[in-house]
């Protein structure tokens, strides 16, 4: 959370300043969207009342985080070594989510696992295929057949 204090550098952007301002900006955006809903009165709050209060609250807190962030870790010093892989994982899952109802559960899940194990982890092809296909089929049997959760099926019927 708190970092060992670095020698104070001039005009260096701090991580808390960035995150605090980002939250404040989000609060502004919420406030802007919230104009569409009637605010109502204190005695009879409308649908926009509570969101407005919350947006103000989060905005103020964001500003406080930014103001108090003078001693936090400098933004430039943050390590993002895993960010690239993390991003790849998220994108792969996103593709899978997109494919889920188009290619069906079994194909999507097998492909996702084969991608993770084969491309990202470079495991042995036999293991990759066994885990990927096995996982997809076993979980499908468990959920769709035994628990009767309607999992998506591909246009080709499996």
């Amino acid at each position: 959370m708190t970092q060992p204090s670095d020698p104070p550098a001039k005009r260096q952007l701090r991580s808390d300043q960035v995150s605090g301002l980002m939250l404040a900006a989000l609060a502004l955006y919420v406030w802007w969207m919230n104009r569409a809903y009637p605010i109502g009165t204190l005695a009879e709050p409308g649908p926009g009342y509570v969101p407005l209060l919350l947006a103000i609250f989060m905005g103020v807190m964001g500003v406080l985080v930014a103001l108090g962030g003078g001693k936090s870790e400098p933004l430039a010093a943050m390590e993002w070594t895993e960010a690239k892989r993390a991003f790849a994982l998220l994108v792969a899952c996103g593709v899978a989510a997109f494919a889920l109802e188009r290619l069906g559960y079994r194909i999507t899940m097998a492909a996702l696992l084969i991608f993770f194990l084969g491309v990202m982890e470079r495991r042995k092809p036999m293991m990759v295929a066994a885990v990927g296909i096995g996982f997809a089929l076993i979980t499908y049997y468990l959920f769709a057949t035994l628990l009767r959760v309607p999992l998506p099926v591909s246009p080709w019927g499996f």
Partner: protein
Amino acid sequence: MAALLASVCVAQAQEAFPTRAITLIVPFPPGGVAEITGRPTAMAIEKILKQPMALVNRPGAGGAVGNAAVANAKPDGYTLLMALSSISVIPAADELFNRKPAYSIDQFAPIALISADPTILVSHPSLPVRNLKELVSLARAKQGQMSFSSSGIYGALHMPMEMFLHHYKLKMRHVPTTGGGPALTTLLGGHVEMTTGGPAAITTHVKSGKLRAHVSWGAKRHENYPDVPTFKEQGADIEYYIWTGLMAPRGTPEPVMKVLRDATRRAVEDTDFKTAMARVNSPVNYMDAPEFAKYWDADAKRLAAVVKVVGKVDDKK
């Protein structure tokens, strides 16, 4: 060749309906009227169609969320709605608010009416009234001070209250909740003075004396409540039913609709279904699609008129 194969496949797919599980969406939280009717219906249809019928609760905004989900679902017969009468109210309310409607009534194709029950006005026993007359005179003396709970704004339990209030020119505070169950809990705790409920939902509480039943919205007395008079008997021309009906998204192919209608017709004859419905005190009131469509049309017009009379709830007071 490929084209031929494809067309055979399509034909087979149509004949074979249903080839997989059907989802029956109940647009209310568990425990409400729609679910109590929906479960036995789904089980009976399941037996006939030999495919699972999964009941899914999609509550929110007096049923608008679940209704919209079905209205915009793929019209293939695999997503059906256990609709409550409030389905006709929500678009009318949307119109009143000048809102982008969540769905419109003509996005649905009725399959069958399953049950139609009048609601019954119940009050907390701490309220010193024994009948409708006393209730009305007390409410008139305390204009705007008594309150009632409902299943949600413009919901199935809100409309009859508004009909009643409008007819007797009464004003009360409205405490919307997220469904029939919570509305009842709020009344049982004495946090509001009254609410309405379907006969099935209120039976145990009326029998045990936790609630007092005063008047029914039906055209004639309810068979399980022979002592409870109707509004018509009391000289008020108001009538309201909570009906439950099966609906599909409009555009569902005719052969699929036929399968579903036939299955429903046979389902309501099913002995298990009948006993299940009898156990929860909910009489079956089956109507096939054409008749149901007419019934629904008349009901929707009546409710839309009520919505107009009620006006924007937010603007009042």
